[in-house]
C-alpha cells in the first residue's frame, strides 16, 4: 500500500531539515549594519563621567565594541573570556553599559575585573537603538575606517573568539 508510505516520507524529509537546523543558530540574525559605519554617539565614560567618548576618536584602529550590563546574567559568562582576551592585548575592547546604573556596573568591574579599555554609559539605551541592540550581550567588530565588520549576539565563548572574531581581527589589522 503505497499511500501508507506517504507519512513516513514526509517525516524523513522533516528529520533531515531538523538535523540541519541543529547546526544553525536561530539567534544569528544578520545585522543590516554590517558594512556600514558604526553609528555615532558621544557618551560619558564610566570611569570618569566628565569625559566623553565617540567612535570617531577610535579611527585608525580595529576595536571590539561589547554591549553589556550589570543585570545581564550571560554577560558574566563571557566576562572571563573577555578578560583573557584583554590580557593578551590583541585587540582593544570598548564596552557600552546598556540601560544600567553606573554604580552597579562599576561594582561588577571592581569585583570581577575590567576587560574594557573604556566603558561608555548608555543609561537610556538611545545609542543602543542605533546599533540595533535587541539582546545583551552583543559584540561588534569595527575596522580602522569605523566600519562595522561583524556582529555577534549572545555571550562570546572561547570558540566564537577563535573561529569568528580573531581571524577577522588579524585580517583587518593588516
Amino acid at each position, binding site marked *: 500500500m503505497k499511500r501508507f508510505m506517504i507519512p513516513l516520507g514526509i*517525516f524523513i524529509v522533516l528529520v533531515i*531539515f*531538523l538535523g540541519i537546523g541543529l547546526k544553525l543558530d536561530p539567534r544569528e540574525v544578520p545585522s543590516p549594519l554590517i558594512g556600514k559605519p558604526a553609528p555615532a554617539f558621544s557618551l560619558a565614560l564610566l570611569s570618569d563621567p566628565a569625559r566623553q567618548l565617540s567612535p570617531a576618536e577610535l579611527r585608525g584602529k580595529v576595536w571590539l565594541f561589547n554591549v553589556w550590563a550589570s543585570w545581564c546574567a550571560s554577560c558574566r559568562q563571557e566576562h572571563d573570556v573577555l578578560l583573557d582576551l584583554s590580557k593578551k592585548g590583541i585587540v582593544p575592547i570598548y564596552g557600552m553599559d546598556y540601560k544600567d546604573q553606573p554604580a552597579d556596573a562599576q561594582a561588577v568591574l571592581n569585583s570581577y575585573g575590567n576587560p574594557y579599555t573604556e566603558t561608555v554609559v548608555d543609561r537610556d539605551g538611545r545609542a543602543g537603538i542605533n546599533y540595533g541592540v535587541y539582546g545583551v550581550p552583543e559584540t561588534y567588530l569595527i575596522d580602522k575606517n569605523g566600519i562595522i565588520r561583524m556582529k555577534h549576539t549572545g555571550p562570546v565563548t572561547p570558540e566564537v573568539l577563535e573561529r569568528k572574531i580573531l581571524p577577522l581581527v588579524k585580517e583587518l589589522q593588516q
Partner: protein
Amino acid sequence: MIPELGHFSLILALLLALVQGVLPLVGAARNNAAWMAVARPAARAQFLFVAIAFGALAYSFLSGDFSVVNVTRNSHSRLPEIYRLTATWGSHEGSMLLWTFILGLWTVAVTLFSRHLPEDMLARVVGVMGLVSFGFLLFMLATSNPFLRMPMAMDGSDLNPLLQDPGMVVHPPILYMGYVGFSVAFAFAITALLSGKLDASWARWSRPWTTAAWSFLTIGIMMGSWWAYYELGWGGWWFWDPVENASLMPWLVGTALIHSLAVTEKRGSFKAWTVFLAIGAFSLSLLGTFLVRSGVLSSVHSFATDPTRGLFILIFLAVVIGGSLLLFAMRASQVGLGGRFALISRESFLLVNNILLLTATGSVLLGTLYPLFLDALGLGKISVGPPYFNSVFVPLVTPLIFLAGIGPLARWKQVNVPELANRLKWGFGASVVAALLLPFTQGDWQPLVSLGCLLSLWIAVTVAISVRARLRSSSGWSANFYGMNLAHLGVAVTVIGVTMVSSYQTERNMRMAVGDTVTLQGYTFRFGGVEDIVGPNYKGSRGTLEVSRNGKPVSTMYPEKRIYVASGMPFTESAIDYGLTRDLYTALGESLDGGAWSVRLFHKPFVVWIWIGAVLMALGGFMAITDRRYRASRKQGRAAA
C-alpha cells in the same frame, strides 16, 4: 546523599523500563504468558523509582541544596517555598523528569484500569510505553542529569522571574498530563498494528484515555495562554510563538483523533486513519518537546536550549516516530479501512472535520518550521508572524465550526438532507439575524464580528436543538452525549471571546504624571503616582491607578515594575480588573523625567470568554469519560473472560 539516591533511582528506573519495554512485547509476540505478566509489576516498579527520583529532586530544591548544579542555576535562598517547588520542573532537567514521572503515572493508570483488556493487548500497550520511558530516562542520564553535583555554591542564580507565578505551579504538570497522555493512545495504536486487531472494543478502550489526555491538554494550553496574558505584560493571549504552536499541534490532531475514534467505535470506519492520528498526536507531542528543548527555533519561551541534547532528542524522535510510521506503512492495510458511508452522512462530516483539523495542523507546522527550512536551504532568515497564521486559520476554522453544529444532528451512514434542513432552518435563520445585529451593541458593525457571532450562535442553537430532541426521546442520561455538547458549547464561548477582543480592543500608551487622568471606553483612569516596594526576592516600583466610571469608583489597580535581586532582571507585573464583559488591563512602562511614567492601558471586551470556553471544552471531555459505556464494557469483558 538525597541527590545520589535520586540519581541511583533513575538508573534503576532505566533498567526496569528496559525490562518493561522488552519482555512483555516479546512475550506477546511469542504468546508467552509469563513474560507478558511482567508488564504490570515492571511498570509499577519503574514508576516507583521515577517517583523517588522526582521526590529527591523536589527535596533538593525545597531544602536549597546549592551543591546540586540544577538547584544553583534555578533557585535562590530568598525564593519563596512554593516557587522552589515550581523550580523543580522549571529547569530543562527537571521538566524532563516531570515528563517521565507523568508517563509513569499514565502507565500505572493503564495497569490499574485494564482488567477488561486481553493480556496480550495490555502487555503490548505497557511495553510500548516502557520503551518510550526508556528513551527519556536514557536521555536524562546521558545528557541532562538533574542531580549533577558541583562545589557548594554560596547561593543560586534564581528561578526565571517569568516562572515565579502561581500559574506556573500547575501549568507545566497539567500541560504534560496532556502531552504525555497521548502516549496511551499511541501505545494502543502500535498495539493494533502489531497484533493486526482493530475492532470496536479497541476503539472503546482507547477513547476515554484519548479524551482524558485531550482535556488535560486543553486546560494546559488555556492556562498557558492566560499566563501569557497577565504575565508577559503585552496584553496578548496568543502569540503564535513556536512553543505555543508546539502545544497547539498535538491538540488539533488530538481533537481529530477524538472524532475519528467515535467513528471507529460506532461504525468501524476510519480504522487506519485513527491509528495514523494516534501516532500523529503523540509524535507532535514529542516534536514539541524537541522544538522547545533543542534550540532549533528561537522563542520567548525557550528557557533552556542546548544543541547536544537536541541531537539526542532528534535521534530519539527519528527512532520512535520513524519506527511507528514504518510499522504503519507495513501493517496499516491489515488493519482495514472499515464500513462504507454515503456522501452526506455523519461519517463524511467527521471526515471533513478531520481533514480541516489536519490541514490546520499542517499549516501551523509549516509556519513554525518555515523559517528553519529557509535557513537550512541557505535562503536567508525570516520569521513567520501572526498575519500568516491568522489568515490561514480563520478560513479553516469557519467551516469546521459550521460542521460542529450539523455533525451531532446528522445520521450515521446516510443523511436525509431535506429532513435535516427542516430541523435546522429556524435555528440557522435566527443565528443569521442575531449575528447581523449583535455587533451594533459593541459599536461599529464589522463583517468579521458578525461571522464570529454567527458561528457561536450556530453552535449554541444546534446544541439546544439536539439536547431538546434528546430530552424528548426515551433515551436516558448519556455522559458521552452531554459531554460532547458541553465541549461544543465551549467552542462557541471561546469564539465569542476571540472575536470580541480581536475587533473591539482599545489601548492607550501614554505618559502620566501624578494626578493625570485618561478616559478609555467610558472608564476614567487617574494616576496616583508610584511608590517603592520590596518583595522577598525583588525590589521595585508600584503604581496606583484609580478607575472610575461615570464618577463611581470601579477599582484601584496596582501595576508593578520589579527588579529581581539575583538575576537583576527587570520585570513587568501587570494589574488586571477582570469582568465577564470586559477586562481592564494596565502595565507600568518606563520611568520618565519629572516623576512621570509611561503607562499602558487596555480595555479588552469579553476576553475571559476565551478561557471560560476552554474550561467548558475540558469539562465536557472529562464528563464524557464518565460514560457508563466505558465501564459497562469492563464488566462485559470480565464476564467474557
